[in-house]
């Protein structure tokens, strides 16, 4: 197989790994919304954890993207 074609296929396969992170980020916000819905007074406390959790989960998607870019460009 042509190495350039293999690179494109590899990058596409590597990007599939972001599915998990998408589910994870959705989980975080859904819990956050449910929590604030049940107990609006707790918004200030849990909002911070929501942002930290989002950033850490998003990092996993970016690890997959970095692998895809490495396959494509290196």
């Amino acid at each position: 197989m042509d190495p350039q074609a293999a690179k494109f296929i590899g990058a596409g396969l590597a990007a599939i790994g972001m599915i998990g992170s998408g589910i994870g980020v959705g989980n975080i916000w859904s819990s956050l919304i449910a929590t604030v819905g049940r107990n609006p007074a707790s918004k200030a406390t849990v909002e911070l954890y929501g942002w930290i959790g989002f950033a850490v989960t998003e990092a996993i998607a970016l690890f997959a993207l970095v692998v895809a870019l490495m396959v494509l460009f290196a």
Partner: protein
Amino acid sequence: MANPIEQFKIQPLVPLEIGGVNISFTNSALMMVAALCLITAFLTLSVRGRALVPGRWQSMAEVFYEFVANMVRDNVGQEGRKYFPFIFALFMFVLFGNLLGMIPYGFAFTSHIIVTFALAALVFVGVTIIGFSRHGLHYLRMFFPHGAPLATAVILVPIELISYLSRPFSLGVRLFANMTVGHIILKVVGGFVVALGVFGIVPMAFLGGVTVLEFGIALLQAYVFTILSCIYLHDAIHMH
């Protein structure tokens, strides 16, 4: 379409070489010096008046100070206060590094893995040394959670060890990947705006939204880097 990777190229501005080692002053170094100058100027000049009721600039400097001080106090506890200067310097450096990259024709020095990994490795080595100096060899108990049956130690200790050793990598790669991917997206969508001519207004609107998102991510990633460092410090000082 513009090559999105080219914006991360390191360009030597003042070529210097000592004994075969290339130590030129690069655009990355220029941005780091600019970040340092901005941080120092902002923090020293804005509190020069030392007003009891702060004006606008002094309020801003105090907001930064209190933000990081609260972070250290909540996550590390009272003994963590002596590490506050380091955490504050880390936060300001990463924050200004991320934000300077958002300036047009600017360069985000945090978009290079070697820079972010160096910072993360610094935190990791520092935290490990603090843990060993505080608890001695007792610190190795960190890898075997209290109260777990001894039979599970065979599988638990390697897992805990690997998860501990992966901290500098995840810390560094998180910051690097966020900055790099953000700027690549900006460059690629910018290429679309130019390529589509009149209909470029649609990717332009998207670009506006992504730029706002990138500013938010610049702030958030600096915060997450700092708070994870605080959490690792807490683990080292208080041993879970």
